[in-house]
């Protein structure tokens, strides 16, 4: 007797549950149907499957399917645009599908995949403080970016979803098709114009800004008091156009600082609302019954995107990875943030190659990035790009569907992940470092490089506070810099001590905080009382510091109840002593230690330790001597080398390489 079809595909950690008996690791490879001749589709899909991924991923580009207003083409005129046929061919080849219909997709398309008539519609264009369109400087053509607040944009988007939904909905898994995963929009942000005062001053955004103020402060009177302003109506409560405007050389007062934090919070809220609206639009178009995800671009800590809040509208939020090997620390930090904040670290775009506009990445960079991400908790990814296309270099499979030599490495990696059931393992870390949103927002507002935004600074290998003012702005220290620097130094000290840790966003669900024995939460003169409440609620032991806060987000005196010990995070000696004490007090495991600057990262399954990564991030070859607690044999999953030891595993490490070792622990 045949079982009835499942009501919906669901996400279980980093696995997709397709039915009662079948799960799928969250791994796929990207291939763009409209950029390839249809007669090449099957070859590309077969090569992709041979690389060891069970899903093909593709964007569906609105601008390609609607080249002129109202003229839709899903293959009726141009066979390359036959999305339905492409998905059917993938199904015939035994591949499930992950589809990303935007509306914005980038994909190195002119206008980021949006139709020309959309980006040139004044009602849709985002606005600068002076009311001008906001231009994105991006090849091959600069263009005015859309407003996430524009009702006209959302109406047009719903119409696009209806059109593409007619092709996709019948092909969703619960309806007998092979589409098992959908993405809502793409790399949400302000289209790389993410400076604090770049946008959005669109009239529809200003309406939402007033609503935000009313929700935050409760009334016009309260807002007026908080901003120390003379508003007589809501129309007077305009957003800031720069930091400390009108204050010449003086310290900004509580009203100005409150206004700035309100704006920073609003910019996050607007993006969250936009994604929520689009997610609803997709459901209304029949795109329901499979999990949805969203991908956040590089530079997420400097970006106005709020990962936990986005996670309230989609099933999983991931980060995109394009890094040279030398950005080891960024890859590690980003993955630890995902692992700590979402509970299932996933890369919707894990670069194989890159767009030709940026500093080139070698194959070795892409491989290092993948292994470093996996080492620190990445459980699933989408190879972007698996199959070559225009405006890209370095994909694993060429546009004729022939595997390039790099495909061998990716195939070995995928087979290793399957062999170790890597998507079901976990990296044990009992310490979490909290990333407090109020300080990240404060830092963004004090950024003085305008469109060279905090996110951009971070994405190009710096930090999100690199462009911030350096003065203390009337506090006891430059908080806009120190929150980041103190956390980074603490992370460095934990790494040196061999203590695994994660980062957790202060807006993450409480269970993400509870998942740790110890939570270190930076605190300075001011703090968010709501965050403090959560610190008081969590089951984790809490350490705050360097100082106990005394002011709330309106910068007025506030009585914060102590929630744990206070530690001067800026004092390296105190921090090292504290870590030493935490190891005993919280029985923190320091698995398989190795001498710095090498690093190790251990992953365990239900039956014990399964996979050990040994990392050499330096540009020199090294010999790793990994300490063991019991006799162990390990096999390098990429090279096939085998290592054995009673008390130590010794192995050579080439410069900037990572070994993924499957462990065979002797009883």
């Amino acid at each position: 007797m045949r079982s009835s079809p499942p009501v919906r595909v669901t996400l279980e950690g980093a696995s997709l549950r397709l039915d009662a008996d079948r799960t799928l690791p969250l791994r796929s490879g990207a291939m763009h149907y409209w950029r390839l001749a249809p007669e090449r589709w099957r070859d590309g899909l077969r090569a992709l499957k041979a690389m060891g991924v069970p899903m093909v991923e593709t964007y569906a580009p609105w601008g390609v399917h609607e080249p002129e207003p109202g003229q839709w083409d899903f293959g009726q005129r141009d066979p390359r645009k036959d999305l339905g046929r492409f998905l059917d061919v993938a199904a015939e080849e035994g591949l499930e599908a992950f589809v990303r219909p935007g509306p914005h997709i980038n994909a190195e398309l002119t206008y980021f995949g949006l139709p020309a008539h959309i980006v040139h519609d004044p009602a849709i264009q985002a606005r600068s403080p002076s009311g001008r369109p906001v231009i994105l400087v991006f090849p091959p053509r600069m263009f005015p970016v859309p407003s996430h607040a524009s009702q006209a944009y959302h109406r047009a988007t719903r119409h696009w979803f209806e059109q593409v939904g007619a092709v996709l909905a019948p092909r969703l898994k619960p309806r007998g098709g092979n589409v098992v995963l959908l993405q809502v929009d793409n790399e949400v942000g302000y289209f790389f114009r993410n400076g604090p005062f770049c946008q959005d001053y669109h009239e529809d955004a200003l309406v939402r800004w007033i609503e935000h103020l009313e929700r935050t402060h409760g009334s016009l009177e309260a807002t007026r008091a908080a901003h120390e302003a003379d508003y007589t109506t809501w129309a007077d409560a305009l957003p800031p156009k720069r930091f400390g405007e009108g204050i010449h050389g003086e310290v900004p007062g509580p009203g100005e600082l409150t206004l700035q934090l309100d704006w920073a919070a609003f910019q996050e809220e607007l993006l969250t609302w936009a994604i929520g609206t689009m997610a609803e639009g997709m459901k209304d178009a029949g795109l329901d019954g499979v999990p949805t995800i969203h991908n956040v671009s590089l530079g997420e800590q400097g970006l106005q995107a709020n990962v936990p809040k986005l996670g309230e509208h989609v099933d999983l939020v991931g980060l995109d990875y394009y890094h040279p090997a030398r950005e080891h620390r960024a890859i590690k930090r980003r993955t630890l943030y995902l692992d700590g904040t979402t509970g299932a670290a996933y890369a919707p775009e894990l670069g194989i190659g890159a767009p030709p506009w940026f500093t080139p990445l070698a194959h070795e960079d892409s491989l290092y990035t993948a292994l470093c991400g996996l080492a620190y908790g990445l459980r699933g990814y989408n190879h972007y790009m698996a199959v070559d296309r225009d405006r890209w270099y370095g994909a694993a499979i060429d546009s004729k569907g022939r595997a390039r030599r790099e495909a061998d490495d990716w195939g070995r990696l995928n087979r290793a992940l399957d062999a170790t059931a890597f998507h079901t393992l976990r990296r044990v870390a009992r310490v979490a470092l909290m990333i407090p949103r109020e300080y990240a927002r404060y830092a963004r507002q004090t950024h003085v490089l305008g469109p060279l935004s905090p996110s951009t600074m971070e994405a190009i290998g710096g930090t999100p506070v690199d462009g911030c003012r350096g003065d203390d702005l009337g506090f006891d220290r430059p908080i806009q810099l120190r929150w980041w620097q103190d956390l980074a130094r603490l992370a460095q000290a934990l790494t040196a001590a061999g203590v695994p840790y994660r980062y957790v966003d202060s807006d993450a669900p409480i269970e993400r905080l509870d998942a740790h024995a110890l939570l270190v939460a930076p605190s300075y003169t001011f703090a968010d009382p709501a965050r403090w409440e959560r610190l008081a609620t969590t089951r984790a032991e809490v350490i705050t510091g360097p100082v106990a806060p005394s002011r709330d987000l309106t910068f007025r005196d506030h009585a914060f109840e102590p929630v744990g010990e206070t530690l001067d995070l800026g004092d390296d000696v105190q921090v090292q002593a504290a870590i030493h004490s935490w190891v005993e007090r919280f029985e923190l495991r320091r698995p398989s230690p190795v001498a710095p600057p090498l690093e190790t990262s251990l992953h365990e399954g239900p039956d014990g330790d399964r996979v050990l990564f040994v990392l050499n991030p330096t540009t020199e070859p090294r010999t790793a001597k990994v300490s063991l607690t019991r006799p162990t044999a390990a096999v390098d999953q990429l090279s096939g080398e085998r290592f054995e030891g009673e008390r130590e595993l010794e192995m050579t490490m080439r410069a900037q390489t990572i070994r993924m070792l499957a462990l065979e622990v002797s009883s």
Partner: protein
Amino acid sequence: MIGPDLRVEGFDAESWTHLVGIFMPNLEDRLSREPPSSDADVSLDPDDGGRARGTLILVDDAERRILMARHSMEGTLPGLVGESSARDLRDLTAAQGARRVVVIREGALDGLADALADGLAHEPPSARSGYVTQWLVLLRAVRQMVEHGELRVWPNPLASVPVPSNRMVQRTFDQVLPDDRALVVALFDRDEPYTSLVVRRRHGLIDLVAGPDLITTWTGPLGGDWRRDHRILNRAVERHVAPVHLGLFAEVDAVREALRSGEPGEWARQVTVRDMVIDPMPRSVKVALGADAIRGLSHITSDLLGGFDLVRAAGPVLDRVRSRWTEIRSLSEELGFDPFIVLAALLRRDDD
């Protein structure tokens, strides 16, 4: 120059990295740098023995009080915050061990973005103007920032160089790659293919940049004696893409040397000794090479140091161009600059 329908395809990671590395001399160093020692404040390199390097980036307010100070390779400079930026930029640069300084007025970059929006506002949605034309709008806005003192740079590379007009850019482009023609570059490393490139211009704008994978589908595998086989490549490009206007075939080291040396006569020498084959060679390139050879000759005759071989090497080219001095002058006048001097100046950059 770059069209909205541009296709860039046919590169694997190695061929692309090789290609970009030709024009980005410090690429290999940048890719192989040691990771920053800390996330707290990214320092790209350990101290390099006091040698001046990197860029000092300052943001000041209307009273010229420094709000933010960074060294591009060494991180934040808290000691400069609150100081006055109204001082000699050369001294400031030297004091911080940097090679250059950029001082930006707070809010000026947001103003620049608005100026760009204004500059592009008159461009109708259907305009065929390319990305380069859009960049000229931006560069003119930057020039205005400099003139208004909102952006101060030392040394100032724009001081003596006017932002080129659309017409000047267009004329240069027409000389290098006329419409409906292709440009071919194939580089070899000891006879093994190193990287290759085909660029096509159509309807006034570049619409195709093809790499080795795509080129190989037109030609079959490249290799062997490139000094002979380059004709096969040209014919294949003519069949599949467009008539070839300019083809450059060379050992990669010869191109690197010519691009970076800045030595007068270097291009002419490489062509003459056949480490570089230019085929076809359009008139503008013949003239430019002649100019390069004459520059080399005048350099040698005025210097008299170790130039004998170069004179001999460049001799045949010089013979050809001596009678065309008027053309050489007219090329420079036409373009408004000496292409080899500009190339060398752009590419002879140090490690940072």
